[in-house]
């Protein structure tokens, strides 16, 4: 694992994508195929099982270091990462396992660890730690907790593989997608010259992305030159049916095949081959509108959804564009023509395939009024698309605009703070905010983002100097600082004392000009929850 630890350190130690690509390609040239296959699996974000619990790791550390539990805990808080804390706290090992190859760990040692009883597992962990240098202890722990994040995108791994073996990136991306098993044979197959260009049949077209509309929509010209739709709050995806075979790709170029069987069945029943652009939504058939995004997340997480999940959280593909029909690429045609063919294609389609309706508003003011109802429709606002425009590639300004609704805002008082993790370890960056309920402040939101590094540092110092109480890592602070928070909605919540929680809260600005008494009241939030 020594070589892999070296690769990890190189990737971790640079922010340059070029240097990362070179490091991966260099590793692939040097490493034995059995190890390189596992490295590709791990780097490309392949799934790792969790083989030991955090509790077991913490116990093993407390025993191995002979440190009291509170000191292990304090150290963990300071570092923000348990795997790293272990590597730092323990004295460097004797290196006797230094040369154990990566594939032996992955195929033999780690699977065996999972089968042990907790007692023996803890003892085995300790034995490994005492035989490895700190860099490898960290990596091993990450593999054991299934939480290794290397900070390289799948695209970068594909580019590095391409640089290593000389095959084109789209071929490698295709070969790597789906269930790729990390074996020397599979690695050799990745690098083999292409036999046909059949792999391209599976690929989505590059997505056309909308830009945020900041100007007055009237500046876009005649309302009738523009198609208006809801801006759906789901997962953007392309549904591909070619030669009767279905593929579903997310905008993040992730294959979603198998996760949404109702969509694939409906696509299979269509009158012909087609490539549809649209949005995956969890659907509430009773009121004919999407379920909250939260519901869709349950489905994304399941590779093979069971009948109960399928029944409770049905998913729809809200189609809004037709990129290919019966083998013909339609992207050069105007939107109006594509929409007409899409409507015809979906006319007799099964329920899971829906056509995103064109919104009927005769002029811009009427459309602006309709936009005010976006939240009731469980959408993020409106999309405006030029009827005469082709389907372009990437984020090209001018033809597709997203006209999102403004977020709600509230002024709230900082009540608690907690140190962050990873890049923000050791700094107080996780904040809880409260609003007034009578003459008491009650928490309604936790927010992590929105301040710049200088503000985070300043607030961190303020928090340390104004702590009133400590609850483990959490500090209560004097209720003096007011922040303006933006959020999307108010939901009932059992987690907060107030009984409500706000969705997607983020800090807009630090209101140093406001006093705590200027903060908002809980009643105002409750009204939003019911509204």
């Amino acid at each position: 694992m020594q070589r892999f630890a070296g690769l990890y350190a190189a990737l971790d130690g640079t922010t340059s994508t070029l240097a990362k690509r070179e490091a991966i390609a260099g590793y692939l040239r040097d490493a034995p195929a059995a190890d390189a296959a596992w490295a590709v699996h791990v780097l490309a974000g392949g799934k790792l099982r969790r083989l030991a619990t955090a509790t077991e790791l913490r116990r093993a550390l407390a025993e191995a270091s002979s440190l009291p539990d509170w000191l292990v805990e304090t150290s963990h808080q300071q570092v923000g990462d348990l795997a790293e804390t272990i590597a730092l706290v323990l004295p460097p090992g004797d290196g006797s396992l230094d040369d154990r190859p990566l594939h032996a760990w992955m195929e033999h040692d780690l699977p065996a660890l999972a089968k042990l009883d907790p007692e023996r597992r803890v003892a085995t962990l300790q034995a490994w730690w005492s035989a490895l240098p700190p860099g490898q202890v960290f990596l091993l722990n990450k593999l054991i907790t299934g939480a290794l994040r290397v900070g390289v995108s799948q695209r970068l791994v594909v580019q590095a593989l391409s640089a290593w073996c000389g095959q084109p990136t789209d071929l490698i991306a295709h070969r790597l997608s789906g269930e790729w098993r990390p074996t020397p044979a599979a690695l050799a197959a990745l690098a083999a010259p292409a036999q046909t260009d059949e792999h391209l049949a599976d690929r989505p077209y590059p997505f056309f992305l909308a830009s945020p509309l900041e100007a007055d929509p009237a500046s876009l010209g005649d309302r009738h030159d523009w198609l208006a739709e809801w801006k759906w709050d789901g997962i953007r995806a392309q549904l591909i049916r070619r030669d009767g075979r279905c593929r579903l790709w997310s905008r993040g170029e992730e294959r979603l095949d198998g996760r949404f069987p109702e969509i694939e069945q409906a696509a299979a029943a269509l009158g012909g081959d087609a490539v549809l652009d649209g949005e995956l939504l969890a659907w509430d058939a009773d009121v004919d509108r999407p379920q909250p995004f939260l519901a869709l997340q349950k489905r994304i997480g399941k590779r093979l959804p069971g009948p109960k999940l399928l029944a409770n959280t049905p998913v729809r593909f809200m189609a809004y564009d037709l990129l290919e029909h019966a083998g013909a690429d339609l992207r050069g045609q105007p939107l109006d023509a594509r929409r007409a063919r899409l409507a015809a294609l979906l006319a007799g389609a099964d329920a899971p395939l829906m056509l995103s309706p064109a919104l009927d508003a005769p002029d811009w003011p009427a459309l602006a009024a309709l936009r005010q109802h976006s939240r009731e429709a469980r959408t993020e606002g409106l999309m405006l698309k030029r009827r005469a425009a082709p389907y372009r590639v990437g984020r090209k300004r001018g033809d597709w605009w997203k006209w999102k609704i403004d977020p709600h805002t509230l002024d709230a008082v900082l009540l608690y703070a907690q140190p962050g993790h990873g890049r923000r370890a050791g700094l107080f960056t996780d904040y809880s905010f409260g609003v007034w309920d009578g003459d008491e402040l009650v928490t309604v939101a936790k927010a992590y983002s929105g301040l710049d590094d200088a503000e985070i540092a300043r607030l961190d110092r303020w928090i340390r100097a104004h702590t009133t109480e400590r609850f483990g890592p959490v500090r209560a602070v004097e209720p003096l600082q007011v922040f303006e928070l933006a959020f999307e909605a108010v939901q009932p919540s059992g987690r907060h004392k107030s009984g409500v929680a706000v969705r997607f809260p983020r800090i807009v600005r630090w209101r140093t000009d406001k006093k705590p008494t200027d903060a908002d009241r809980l009643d105002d939030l409750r009204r939003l929850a019911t509204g």
Partner: protein
Amino acid sequence: MRSEELIQPRPEGPYCPAGDFYIDPLRPVARAVVTHAHADHARSGSGHYDVAAAGLGLMRERLGQDAAITARGYGEAFRMGPVTVSLHPAGHVLGSAQVRMELDGRVVVVSGDYKRDPDPTCAPFEPVPCDLFVTECTFGLPVYRWPPMERVIDDLLAWWDDCARRGMPAVLFCYALGKAQRILAELAARTGRTVHLHGAMLRLVEQYRQAGVTMVPTVPVSESARGRDFAGELVLAPPSAAGSTWMKRFGKASTGFASGWMQIRGNRHRRGYDRGFVVSDHADWPGLLASVAQSGARQVRVTHGDSDALVRYLREQGVDAAPLHLPRERDAESGG
């Protein structure tokens, strides 16, 4: 005889009532003993200073050429009223000292800043037996355990070579006094290549050379012709130069930071440097514990940084430990 007669916190800094002098005072006082030449310890304006002879040149840089300074050899005993005082190597930077105070057979040692790792630029820390030991605690958690310097220099040289291969300058940020010279001296054992220096380091490096410390050849960045290509060169600069217009001359440079804080991955990433090198002139956790044990002190007072964990840990080990709150609240990021 109680220890409070030998050491107590005052707004001006740690004070010895029996001898009527301060250690590293923040404000001008009549009589000061100064442990080392870092700016937050050596402040000008006091009536008279006692310092370790090895650091006299550096002290003059900080305190002024006209300051009244008495240089004391390490171990040399001198009187401050009824108190017998002596200075002992702290291993922190050139001329750094611990302050030993003795009155009526009772001994208090104030460590100042110190480290236990070998450093070719200064005398090694000397354990001084005492009844009460006042220790610093910049890195008071067991996650701080310094890697061997040899390995850090391996990494540094590998980075330098890598930058050369990519045709980029390697700009290493580190404190201008102590850290810079330690790195230059460690490099001298491995290479003869010339290193470029930021202006803030020139006089300090010169002081170390005059004190007989062997370092790699250095050349001021300012002496290079305008538009010079620094590709493949190693440049040392203080952290304050990061992001300044001074950096523009290097174009697309790879940046590194040498500090004990770089031990934690999160710090490395947050600081936004390309590389972090774990080099500290402070004691790590094993160093703190070893020093407390070797002092033989029954009472330990802890200053600087987050002292809570060390105090609690020592108490659980049966040591009479407590924080000693000094007015000097140093920015935790400044001393690494």
